[in-house]
């Protein structure tokens, strides 16, 4: 079973459609403490940091421990940012699974909206033969304290930032794979196949 943590903002339809399209059961859960009782947790990616962190607060420690213990997790956009300690976008604590902060893009045009390339990948899910250009819609990006968790990079103007991070069995992506057309859909399916027993 896959559980999508639903913190009340934005469009989950496309994401849920991709997840159910793999023949697996998908549940939406608004309580993070209950959401971790699953085979794969998805932290979706629309909304602002502070309200999402507030919705997460009660289940924060439970979820962090579950991910540390190896619960597979896919964090998308804001969902990736929530893996870190905190954000300059607003108050509240992230999961703290990864150390580092979320800060505003250093660029003349923000938000960063559109399709950007995924560079210098150290994970075979990204690169010329896999997902190489993805759709972004973000003003803030993750700045990991330990750059070795970054498995792909993107650059907006001159600001190079973490396109994807990996730790334990958690993968966080700053872009929206569910909005990155067929290669993005394929990326999600591949991740599910990699982390979930069939």
């Amino acid at each position, binding site marked *: 079973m896959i559980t999508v943590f639903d913190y009340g903002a*934005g*469009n989950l339809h496309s994401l849920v459609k*991709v997840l159910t399209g793999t023949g697996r059961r998908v549940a939406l859960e608004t309580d993070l403490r209950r959401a971790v009782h699953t085979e794969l947790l998805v932290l979706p990616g629309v*909304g602002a940091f502070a*309200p999402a962190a507030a919705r997460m607060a009660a289940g924060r420690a439970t979820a962090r421990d579950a991910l540390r213990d190896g619960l597979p997790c896919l964090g998308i956009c804001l969902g990736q940012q929530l893996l870190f300690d905190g954000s300059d976008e607003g108050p509240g604590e992230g999961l703290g699974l990864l150390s580092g902060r979320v800060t505003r893009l250093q660029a003349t045009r923000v938000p960063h909206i559109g399709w950007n390339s995924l560079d210098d990948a150290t994970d075979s899910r990204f690169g010329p033969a896999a997902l190489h250009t993805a*759709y972004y*819609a973000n003003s803030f990006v993750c700045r990991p304290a330990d750059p070795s968790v970054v498995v792909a990079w993107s650059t907006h103007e001159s600001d190079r930032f973490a396109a994807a991070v990996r730790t334990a069995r958690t993968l966080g992506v700053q872009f929206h794979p569910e909005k990155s057309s067929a290669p993005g859909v394929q990326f999600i399916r591949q991740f599910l196949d990699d982390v979930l027993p069939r």
Partner: protein
Amino acid sequence: MLTRRLIACLDVRAGRVVKGVQFVGLRDVGDPVELAMRYEAEGADEIVYLDISASAEERATLLDLARRTAEHLFIPLTIGGGIRTVDDVAAALRAGADKVGLNSAAVRRPEVLNEGADRFGAQCIVASIDAKWDDGRFRVYTHGGQTPTELEAVAWAAECAQRGAGEILLTSIDRDGARDGYDLALTRAVADAVPVPVIASGGAGSAAHVCAALTTGKADAALVAGILHDNVMTVAALKQAMRAAGLAVREAA
């Protein structure tokens, strides 16, 4: 590197794609979901639905359409037309839109831009601005280009961005449907004045026009409608021309 976007716009009314000139002689040209999926397959970077429904009954179908579309379309969908309040924004996003365009409602009550951005993030709030050259300046019009306002387009765009709009969808009323090119002076003036992406709209008649909007006009994205629906150009041909002009373009699968 961030690529330049080509965005396909569909006018919808009562859940169907319609086509007409200046809202006159509208005729049904198909199912929005089918057309949107076709444009995605051809390499369109985003889809915009502009709802031109004339009544609440017709507009009621929009959220259902967003829902159906989101289940089949895997590129971003923006919905504009008839969105009035932050609750309308919430409903559209919840139904399946990734971004929402605000036009007349933002002119009437600019705070709706702040409210939308605070609640959902700037990246999903699009300020849709219709402008027309009038008495030596670009004047903002509302209600489908019918109602003049006292706002000047460049200053209004800057205010929209300052209030939290994450993109400006800028339509030239003078050029809309004329197919003689985007209003490059308008586009460039707005692109120079705002720190958010600008989508050029109105006037596309050829691939050269699209390229000019993205180079001379300094737009981040170009919106096309009629030339696609009338099969004057295809998405693939437009993107090939963008590539040939030296612009960074996404390679579709």
